[in-house]
């Protein structure tokens, strides 16, 4: 990068000399009349907060961060495949609590319901569980360690959406290819979906959220689309070719999606899994409102044995989950990079940025 900057500086310098030459010939170059950059930006940049989270020394920082949710007090809940699975931090980074040691096998997504209870999906145990915020188990769906595809069994469930009335919609999952609907007591209501890439089918239902509009948004990750259903399971729409959606977060009429730009899940015999690291804010009707990229980090040749010490600040490798607090800060969980990041929106240029400069545009 530094080299590129140098080359560009050189380019600017040459351009500057050329323009000086031209002006000595009596031709004025008026490019400097206006700045070549936004003085009142329409673009929102995001800076990584290097001080978030402030993890106490006796809490483990090891393990994939596969689940993340922000509760109504702007507390950020992390669910990770490590010694301390559930970790809670305030938006300013202060540690709140941890629980769940030894209770989980393969943590996946985490959600907070309308009563403030915490839901987690464990694809290794084939169950979805509801806990109090303090970690007391309230409810279990599925049968632990028993994979299956019926009214009481899941096969590696990935995520769950909880309706205001307490109904539960589970994405099931890595093993099955369906959505399963339960009432608040855990009684099976219905299931829909099968393997495929037609409307209403799934290649891999990886995450699910429920909008205030009552619509369910399902991240069908490996086929690179988001499918929208009503709560009766009726297919409404799909958005494809934009992102491989790994994680979803919905707030009002904004749907944040994290993942990679589109690619084939299997190409030339390989499973590339990701090309880059993308965050996209959709409107709930499907328009892309914002796109932000995080730099893809390097963790060595084997992502299952990552060398996370190679990661530079702000880099991610496998953005898996995303959440937004009431102030517009974004939080992302990274599996292969084994960390969570806070991204702070920046919309006002610094005085340094507003100074007119003599450098010329790249043309």
């Amino acid at each position: 990068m530094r080299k590129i900057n140098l080359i560009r500086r050189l380019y600017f310098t040459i351009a500057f000399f050329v323009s000086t030459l031209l002006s000595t010939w009596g031709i004025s170059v008026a490019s400097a009349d206006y700045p070549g950059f936004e003085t009142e930006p329409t673009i929102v940049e995001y800076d990584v907060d290097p001080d978030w989270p402030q993890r106490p020394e006796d809490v483990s920082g090891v393990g994939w961060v596969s689940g993340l949710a922000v509760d109504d007090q702007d507390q950020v809940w992390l669910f990770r495949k490590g010694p301390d699975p559930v970790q809670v931090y305030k938006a300013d980074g202060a540690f709140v609590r941890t629980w769940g040691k030894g209770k989980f096998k393969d943590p996946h997504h985490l959600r907070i319901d309308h009563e403030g209870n915490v839901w987690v999906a464990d694809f290794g145990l084939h169950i979805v569980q509801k806990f109090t915020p303090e970690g007391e188990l309230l409810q279990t769906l599925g049968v632990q360690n028993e994979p299956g595809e019926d009214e009481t069994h899941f096969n590696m469930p990935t995520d769950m959406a909880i309706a205001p009335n307490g109904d539960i919609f589970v994405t099931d999952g890595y093993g099955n290819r369906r959505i399963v609907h339960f009432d608040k007591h855990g009684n099976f209501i219905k299931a829909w979906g099968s393997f495929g890439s037609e409307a209403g089918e799934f290649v891999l239902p990886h995450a699910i959220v429920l909008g205030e509009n009552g619509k369910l948004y399902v991240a069908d990750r490996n086929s690179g689309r988001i499918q929208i259903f009503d709560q009766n399971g009726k297919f409404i729409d799909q958005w494809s070719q934009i992102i491989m959606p790994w994680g979803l977060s919905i707030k009002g009429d904004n749907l944040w999606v994290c993942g990679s730009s589109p690619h084939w899940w299997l190409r030339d015999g390989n499973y590339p899994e990701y090309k880059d690291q993308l965050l996209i804010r959709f409107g709930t009707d499907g328009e892309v409102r914002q796109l932000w990229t995080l730099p893809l980090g390097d963790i060595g040749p084997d992502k299952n044995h990552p060398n996370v010490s190679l990661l530079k600040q702000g880099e991610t490798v496998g953005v898996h989950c995303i959440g937004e607090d009431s102030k517009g800060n974004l939080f992302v969980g990274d599996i292969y990079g084994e960390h969570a990041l806070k991204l702070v929106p920046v919309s006002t240029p610094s005085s340094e940025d507003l100074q007119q400069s003599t450098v010329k545009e790249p043309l």
Partner: protein
Amino acid sequence: MLSLKPYLLQSIAASFVLQFISDLAYAQYPEFPPTPLVVEYDVDTTWPQRPENVKPLGAVSGISVDQDNNVWVFNRGEDQVQVYNVDGGFVRKWEKTIVAEPHHLRIDPVGNIWLTDIGLHVVHQFSPDGKLLKTLGVSGQPGEDDMHFNAPTDVAVSPEGDAFISDGYGNRRIVHYDKDGKFVKTWGTFGTQPGQFVVPHSIVMDAQGRLYVADRSGGRIQIFSQEGKFIDQWDQVMMPWGLTVTDSGDVWACGSTPYWWKRNGEFPTVKDQVLVRFGSDGRVRQIWAVPLGKEGQTRPGDFNGIHCIAQDDYGNLYVGDVFGNRAQKLTIAKDVSDSP
């Protein structure tokens, strides 16, 4: 060794059981779609086939596909205009033209070629064989009035022959001329409000006659009527460097994902290299990211500074690279390799 054997057998047995369980879990369904929904693009490394007597491409700033699916490449090398067919075969070249610093190239509805010159502040219309037909602006004279531009970047020509010029790096406006080269009107000033521009870098017109202006450094595409009325803007999606309209009315934009052109006193380099296809309603229909090349390296398939884009009748994309000094063809990958 002997004492290890039972453990060995045990672990082999265990691995079979584990394999069986994981087969149960995973192998029920494939992890990839039976029919891919995603369109992948491959780079055709055999395109273009430049003959020895044609000079290597310099910075490729302009690219367009004509009615015969020939690809016109406008570059800052010695042979400024080079034309190749879809297979990469050489069609023709223009040697160094009267253009000092090439920018975008467009082909108008009757097949004439328009070249923009940011160095001499003019826009020229040529016949396909390189005969100068018309010049807008005054060569070597920058200005901001009815007959002068300041580093104009691109031109969109209507079926009636009206020309809309994005002007440019110096000024911040769109200038409208009729088919006889008579000034009609101009609009736009510096800024980020609707109808203002930070750097109007490219302009195209769709079949409905709407104008799309790539306000590159403002990170948005603005849509106007030919009367200059602001209709809409698509922002926060990308920094659009080049635009092209497809036959189906979609707009391909090439560039980088959004960032501030100036940040903390620095001018960051492009973040990445993306192609985004918008519907005419502004909906994003497709995103394709290509790898950002390392400075000084021109690996096939990498892009160092995407500047311009065009699409042929077969859906192939042609992308000009202003830092990598090349043009590349992207073909739609067949879905055969996505089967087991």
